[in-house]
């Protein structure tokens, strides 16, 4: 009950006119940041952080967290329209969002994405409101072994289901792992596979690879196919929002599952990107529409978007209560808290009630404001697809180049992006799946780090991955996911008559 009283007090804080103003401003800035590939929520928040130093801390964090929500919403827009994920967690959204746009259903895809984002965030905020202290202590149980188990599960739930020939999937994934290994080896502190090149110190940034593989690769493919832009028939009418909403309730199971996956991954804190991949993978496996995934299925947009937004929201909880950021953006927000003289950690909820509950209340309101802002813009976004390809393609190219440059302010990255573009084109031509490659680049080094940390701690014994019920359960779930098709097949052979 005390929480509810605090929450209403929080609403009173968040609803002050000045705070509502910064909320709307934050959302709009966030959407812009999310749309520009490469700029990213973390960079965006970092750049705008100094703007907020003259504000009271509560208004400042409301503004910054609204930029964060805006970026989460905005990341979906370019993924769906141009197959260019604006944010790492939007990659899985391209798998079905872009095919939908190509079929002229960009409006539906955008509406589904925005609505799912809202649902995911709302679920996570309600969870934060009700069970914050309980959940925070759960995060403490995650050591390196548990973290590795989560990454393992993310890989397994995504890999076992691939429709492509298994060897091509494995080959693509191995290329991804090899690329992820370049740069500094964080366990030994030495450089790997850089061949003396100082440009490669940083390794291959995931965003550069994705902008190249997806964005540039897609433009090359379209050029080959005669410069036709297949999204031209997109409806540009606000009614599309209502029509999509009518369809949405039938996906409630996927939605709920994605919310749970998202919250869990946000708290642990593995983050929004693995959450979106895992949720997409599991939905593809268990949904009755699973065989249509990848061809433009609404459910394939709902699953990753819900999970990503739930994770993005839940990631703020470990930051506030433990001082551990669940995402890069949360890390920058954490820096902001310290600058305003607020010490995140176990005492924040006790000592800074007004701040914490003002922030939580702004999560409710910020997401609602965000949803309204982006939904009213759906027709405008969809209309972009009516612009002839010969005009839009150079614009996309420029956007990609700016995005790649802004990741590390380095021109080398722009060249690298073009190389990735050609690689992406070739891989698509040879029917190698890109998703496993991307998954391996984004999670490969994190999984490796957690694996080696675990083994250091256990002095080389693999038993550490089954040493307690938590890590053991996650590992077993991963193994089941990996061998799911084999298990299913075996089951249907045992009972050949009962299978429809």
């Amino acid at each position: 009950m005390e929480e509810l009283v605090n929450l209403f007090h929080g609403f009173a804080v968040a609803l002050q006119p000045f705070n509502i103003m910064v909320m709307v401003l934050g959302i709009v800035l966030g959407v812009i940041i999310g749309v520009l590939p490469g700029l990213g929520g973390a960079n965006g928040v970092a750049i705008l952080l100094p703007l907020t130093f003259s504000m009271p801390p509560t208004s400042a964090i409301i503004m910054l967290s609204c930029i964060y929500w805006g970026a989460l919403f905005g990341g979906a827009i370019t993924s769906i329209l141009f197959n260019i994920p604006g944010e790492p967690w939007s990659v899985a959204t391209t798998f079905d969002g872009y095919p939908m746009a190509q079929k002229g259903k960009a409006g539906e895809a955008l509406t589904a994405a925005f609505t799912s984002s809202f649902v995911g965030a709302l679920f996570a905020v309600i969870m934060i409101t009700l069970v914050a202290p309980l959940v925070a202590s759960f995060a403490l149980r995650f050591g390196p072994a548990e973290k590795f188990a989560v990454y393992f599960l993310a890989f397994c739930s995504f890999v076992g289901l691939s429709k492509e020939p298994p060897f091509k999937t494995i080959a693509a994934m191995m290329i991804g792992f090899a690329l992820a290994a370049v740069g500094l080896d964080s366990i030994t502190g030495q450089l790997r596979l850089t061949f003396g090149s100082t440009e490669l110190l940083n390794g291959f940034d995931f965003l550069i690879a994705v902008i190249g593989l997806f964005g540039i690769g897609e433009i090359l493919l379209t050029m080959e196919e005669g410069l036709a832009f297949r999204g031209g028939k997109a409806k540009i009418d606000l009614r599309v929002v209502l029509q999509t909403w009518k369809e949405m309730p039938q996906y409630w199971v996927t939605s709920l599952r994605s919310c749970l996956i998202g919250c869990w991954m946000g708290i642990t804190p593995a983050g929004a990107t693995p959450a979106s991949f895992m949720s997409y993978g599991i939905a593809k496996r268990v949904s009755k529409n699973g065989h249509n995934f990848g061809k433009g299925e609404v459910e394939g947009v709902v699953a990753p978007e819900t999970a990503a937004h739930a994770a993005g929201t839940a990631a703020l909880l470990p930051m506030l209560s433990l001082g551990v950021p669940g995402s890069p953006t949360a890390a920058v927000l954490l820096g902001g808290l310290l600058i305003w003289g607020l010490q995140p950690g176990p005492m924040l909820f006790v000592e800074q009630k007004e701040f914490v509950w003002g922030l939580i209340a702004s999560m409710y309101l910020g997401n609602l404001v965000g949803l309204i802002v982006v939904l009213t813009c759906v027709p405008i976004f969809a209309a972009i697809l009516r612009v002839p390809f010969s005009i839009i393609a150079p614009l996309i190219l420029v956007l990609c180049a700016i995005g790649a440059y802004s990741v590390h302010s380095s021109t080398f990255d722009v060249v690298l992006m073009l190389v990735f573009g050609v690689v992406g084109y070739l891989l698509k031509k040879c029917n190698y799946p890109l998703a496993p490659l991307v998954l391996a680049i984004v999670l490969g080094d994190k999984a490796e780090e957690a694996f080696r940390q675990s083994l250091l701690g256990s002095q080389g014994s693999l038993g550490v991955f089954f040493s307690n019920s938590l890590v053991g359960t996650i590992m077993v779930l991963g193994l089941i996911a990996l061998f799911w098709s084999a298990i299913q097949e075996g089951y249907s052979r045992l009972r050949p008559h009962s299978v429809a």
Partner: protein
Amino acid sequence: MKHSVLHTALAAIAIFGAGNMTASAAWEPVRPVEFIVPAGTGGGADQMARTIQGIVTKHSLMKQPMVVINKSGGAGGEGFLDVKGSGNNPHKIIITLSNLFTTPLATGIPFSWKDMTPVAMLALDEFVLWVNAEKPYTTVKDYVDAVKQAPAGGMKMGGTGSKQEDQIITVALEKATGTKFTYIPYKGGGEVAVQLVGNHVDSTVNNPIEAVAQWRGGKLRPLCVFDGKQMAYDEVVADGKGWKDIPTCKSQGLDIEYLMLRGIFMSPKATKDQVEYYVELFKKVRATPEWQDFMKSGAFNTTFLTGPEYAKWVETEEKRHETLMKEAGFLATPGN
């Protein structure tokens, strides 16, 4: 005591001299100034850089904007090489941590602090030995006894990065106690502190600012500080104790001292006027109440050095790191 006198004196000079000095300064930035952080977002160096950026913006200390840029690749090597290659560009400054010394030594990246122009030492970051508050050890002696009783490598020390400051201290601890730790590297200091709260490691040497929240929350316990004297801040933090009440490790029989540089460097060919401009800028920053609050929250050692004294300090420290890293076997193998 000497430091606080020095500090107050400098603050006074900065306040009184602010007007005159800007007027008489021969050089001023004409473009936005890039403030490079050779570490990731959210870490200690990043927090300090962004605090400075906030102070400069809020008090309008500079006519041009200051932009913080993270270049964390290759344990910070990316950022250092960027400044090294910036020639006489006076619009680029960098904040350093111990990776100024450790990164070139451990990775063989072609870089030394002499490839940049020293500007000023802003502060020194302390290191404290932390254990989980649930554990029975309340003194260094209890802890060292427990380490000695554990099988070799049975005690896990969590730290930030590999072959960097935390691991250097761990090796020094091993030498001082004649034991062996299993050192587990993590990406960031905050994560390390939480791993200790969750009992995934047995101890850490976190900087005060990284672990203070957990100390206040009653989750962690400080045992000693790796400094020659106790920290200056006597305000109560937790359990009726303040930073000042933490004994030095030396007084507890662990003869180890380690402080981390939080200093500023700039492009290699910067002129004297340009260096002078930034020295004055940072004097003004140090005089603000925001900076003093920040120093207090992180229990920083507020030593401020410029010019030849600063260069000399860096040189001594480089030699010391070379010896420490060599003894620990952390130097890059040829051919890397």
